[in-house]
């Protein structure tokens, strides 16, 4: 006979406010096979867990139902507690009466009734649970880091310094990411490149890091500890094992007027190019779309002048298979594009001229204007005529916090970098005047608010609280019309340059990658962490971690911190030779299996195969399905295609689900 204990948690007021927990405990006590039930303020607390453990011993419980938060939140906590007694952790189930009951319902009577129902379902389920044995799987001690920005570099270096191998993949020709484009960084105003480039160099030279630039992830299969990844190393038409990075090819290339991606369109580059002087690796790449030879079949100037014969026009994409145990996704962000051809399909800002006026630029472009390595060598000159702008208007929240035209979220870093921009501008153009249109100033962070105050108080930036309604050109000037909601007046500023702090958005091509990885993403396509508070680095796909702005807008210190956290997770994973996995795997009842092979075809993991059943004389009796428990991930797709119900799935067995349904409405 089953002896079930039910433990009802108030979660402080979180559950208790809408669910009468004492009623739930009392009603649970009446259920068949429930021999003990209790409610308590915080079941997950130490005393709460002790209550559970004591009750298991005292009442000889054969199963435990914790009615509290989501199992995704605390199932592990309670199973660990149960494991400390003699009971198998798999004999503990959770009834989700918080996220799926108290927090979403208002009527206390109905919510309490629902909570009782949810407990009954779980009591029926747990009665049919079995003490499973965790599955042990080997760990490949190598990590893949996707993305070579500051987050990826930091994660790779930390893992490599922890003496584990890292494969780092960057889709563009050089690592460095957006940070390499920045001038100086807030709140210290130290030079971005000065602090980044040494890390880039270490990443390339570290004995434990294998770097692939101009490379993308083609496919990912497998699971935690055992991912099989195929990389596509795109043809750069330059043999990176020969090239010395002398740069002669760039000089000789007749195509010189191609807008430079690194300089955000404000500078030019040739068709064969190294993205920026400090690029790592210092190897050029041929832009096939624009290369004269590829377009017309004639030229090959670069080949002629390359004394090492490193130019290879016949190079093709190369596929590299690697095995890794963990993956860090650090794919970063993209700037919201207010232009007409907005990638996100959102209308953009027609009243700001859709970004068509050359003197309306975005913040990243302004970074390049400020940067000593930028197209103007650090002199602030406006793009249209190279004049030093005397009045610059900065607009914040362009795309961010704007439900109608952009994204609803706050891009988080714009307040800080705009303050930085006004300061750097003032430092370079002493007579210049910066105006900032803002909605709120969000400067939470160490030394952040002080930094903004300095911009206003010491560097004289004029902050106006309000939106800009229109920007239009009048001769040499850009007229910026907006509201100053603090004074309640309309403002009109004749500016020489307008800088838009456009939103931080997800990488436009992140979704296919997320799908390859099996990582969730939100409606803005930022990747989803496993838990917003307690698992901010993990994803719901075990063994895959997040770092940097691919998860949400982040500044450099945050990205670095998360990268180091991800690295710590990877190192933790690699510290074991074997992993324990929840044994939620399918199994075949061979006696009733007819071997129709539907499950073999349907299994997403190719975990099922044919197995011959032979008699003692070795004569074939029949073929049945055979499930490789190492490959099975427990999705249960095979159960649904099995007409005779000859497959079952541990943890979600037919009997368990059947009993849950059978006890739904009584």
């Amino acid at each position, binding site marked *: 006979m089953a002896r079930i204990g039910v433990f009802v948690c108030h979660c402080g007021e979180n559950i208790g406010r809408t669910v009468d927990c004492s009623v739930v405990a009392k009603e649970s006590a*009446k259920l*068949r096979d429930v021999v003990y039930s209790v409610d308590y303020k915080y079941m997950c607390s130490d005393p709460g867990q002790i209550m559970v453990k004591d009750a298991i011993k005292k009442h000889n419980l054969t199963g435990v139902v914790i009615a509290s938060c989501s199992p995704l939140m605390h199932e592990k906590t309670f199973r660990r507690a149960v494991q400390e007694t003699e009971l198998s952790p798999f004999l503990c189930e959770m009834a989700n009466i918080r996220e799926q009951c108290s927090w979403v319902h208002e009527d206390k009577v109905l919510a309490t009734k629902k909570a009782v129902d949810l407990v009954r379902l779980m009591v*029926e389920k747990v009665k049919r649970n079995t003490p499973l044995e965790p599955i042990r799987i080997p760990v490949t001690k190598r990590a893949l880091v996707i993305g070579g920005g500051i987050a990826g570099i930091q994660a790779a270096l930390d893992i490599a310094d922890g003496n584990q191998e890292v494969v780092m993949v960057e889709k563009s020709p050089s690592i460095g990411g957006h940070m390499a484009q920045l001038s100086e960084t807030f709140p210290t105003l130290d030079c971005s490149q000065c602090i980044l480039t040494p890390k880039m160099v270490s990443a390339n030279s570290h004995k434990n890091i294998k770097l692939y630039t101009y490379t993308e992830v083609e496919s990912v299969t497998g699971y935690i500890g055992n991912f099989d990844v195929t990389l596509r190393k795109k043809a750069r038409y330059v043999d990176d094992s020969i090239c010395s990075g002398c740069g002669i090819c760039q000089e000789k290339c007749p195509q010189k007027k191609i807008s430079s991606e690194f300089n955000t369109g404000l500078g030019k580059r040739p068709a064969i190019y190294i993205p920026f002087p400090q690029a790592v690796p210092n190897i050029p790449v041929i832009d096939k779309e624009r290369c004269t030879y590829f377009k017309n079949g004639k030229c090959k100037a670069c080949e002629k002048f390359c004394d090492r014969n490193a130019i290879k026009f016949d190079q093709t994409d190369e596929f590299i298979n690697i095995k890794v145990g963990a993956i860090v996704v650090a794919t970063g962000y993209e700037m919201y594009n207010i232009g007409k051809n907005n990638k996100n399909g959102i209308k953009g800002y027609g009243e700001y001229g859709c970004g068509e006026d050359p003197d309306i630029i975005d913040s990243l472009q302004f970074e390049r204007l400020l940067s000593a390595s930028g197209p103007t060598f650090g002199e602030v000159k406006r793009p249209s005529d190279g004049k030093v702008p005397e009045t610059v208007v900065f607009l914040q929240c362009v795309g961010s916090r704007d439900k109608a035209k952009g994204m609803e979220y706050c891009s988080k870093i714009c307040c800080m970098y705009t303050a930085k921009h006004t300061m750097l501008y003032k430092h370079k153009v002493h007579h210049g005047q910066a105006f900032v249109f803002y909605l709120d100033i969000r400067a939470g962070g160490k030394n952040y608010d002080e930094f903004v105050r300095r911009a206003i108080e010491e560097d004289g930036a004029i902050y106006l609280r309000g939106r800009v309604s229109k920007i239009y050109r009048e001769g040499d000037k850009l007229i910026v019309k907006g509201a100053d909601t603090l004074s309640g007046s309309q403002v009109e500023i004749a500016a020489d340059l307008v800088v838009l702090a456009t939103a931080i958005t997800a990488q436009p091509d992140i979704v296919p990658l997320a799908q390859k990885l099996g990582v969730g993403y939100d409606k803005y396509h930022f990747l989803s962490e496993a838990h917003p508070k307690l698992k901010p680095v993990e994803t719901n796909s075990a063994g895959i971690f997040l770092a940097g702005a691919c998860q949400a807008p982040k500044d450099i210190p945050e990205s670095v911190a998360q990268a180091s956290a991800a690295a710590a997770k990877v190192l933790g994973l690699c510290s074991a030779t074997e992993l324990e996995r929840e044994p939620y795997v399918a199994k075949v009842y061979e*006696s009733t299996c007819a071997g129709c092979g539907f499950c073999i075809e349907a299994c997403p993991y190719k975990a099922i195969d044919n197995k011959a059943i032979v008699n003692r004389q070795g004569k074939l009796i029949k073929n049945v399905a055979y499930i490789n428990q190492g490959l099975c991930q427990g999705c249960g797709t095979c159960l649904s295609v099995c007409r005779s119900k000859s497959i079952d799935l541990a943890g979600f067995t037919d009997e368990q689900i059947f009993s849950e349904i*059978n*006890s739904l409405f*009584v």
Partner: protein
Amino acid sequence: MKIFKITGTYKDLVETLLSLDYKVIAPVNRNKLTRFDFINSADEVLSPDEVLNTVRPAKEHLFPMTETVARFSYEGKKLRIGDVEVPEEKSVIIGLRPCDAAAFDAIDKIFSYVYQDKFYLTRRNNTTLISVACEHPDNACFCTSFGISPDSAKGSDILLKKSKDSSLFAFISTERGEDLARTINNIIPEEQPDPGRDLYEAAEKNMRAPLDLPKIKEALNTNFESEYWNEFSRCLGCGSCAYLCPTCHCFDIVDEVRYDKGIRKKNWDACQFPLFTLHASGHNPRDAQNKRYRQRLMHKFKYYHDRFDTHLCTGCGRCIRECPVNIDIYEAAAELCGCEANI
């Protein structure tokens, strides 16, 4: 045996029955299926000329396909168990053929053997059987093999028969039959001389020749392991024969539980299914269809006879008519003992 004369037609008789305090069950064609069912009007009844034998026999009215026999519930931690009573309702089944009436005679024996099956017996004691003699048996009929004939009164409370000039007579075999007959105004309760069986003698001649039952039983006694049974490996095991047989009476007991309430049901079952004999160990003593068919023949012609001195077949021919692969029990029994099947 008392012989009374009936005035009016068969339909008139049904109408009178409907006016009495009985539930009336008669052959009908409901939704493309001929069966015995409760009727509300004589118009819906199939006349004996319209149907020889319904697809479904009348046994379901005494031995339902599914029947609740007990119930239980969990109230809190307590299990409570309750009995089910069978209502004492008077009913009459009219339009049975002699083979079907005789079939009840055969299965009475098992339902009142060691265990008195109150579900069957209560209904049986409250049911009056009125059968109708057959003028036109078909090429599957072989009741004469079992001492039954197209006008046999065996098992019937009342048998309706026609004289040569088509007058209708009631042959009353039981008190229950007589009690009913005396309340029916279409039946004149005056004993008549036997009107003879001319019509039925003629009918009998068109039927399959009687089987040599002792010889068959002898063959069954000695041929349990015979290769002969391989012939029946073509059997699909569909169980149609058992489900349509008026004498097959196997059932399975199953509990249906909906969380805290349960009912115990008795459902028809058949020896032609592998599950019928599957042991919990996984072993199945009748692991092939030919063995299951052998069991069918054994039970019909030997085991039941050993125990009750009655064959468990009345030659109604349903299994022959409905078998999807034309397994013919008559042919099977005849050929087993080396006889020519005279069909």
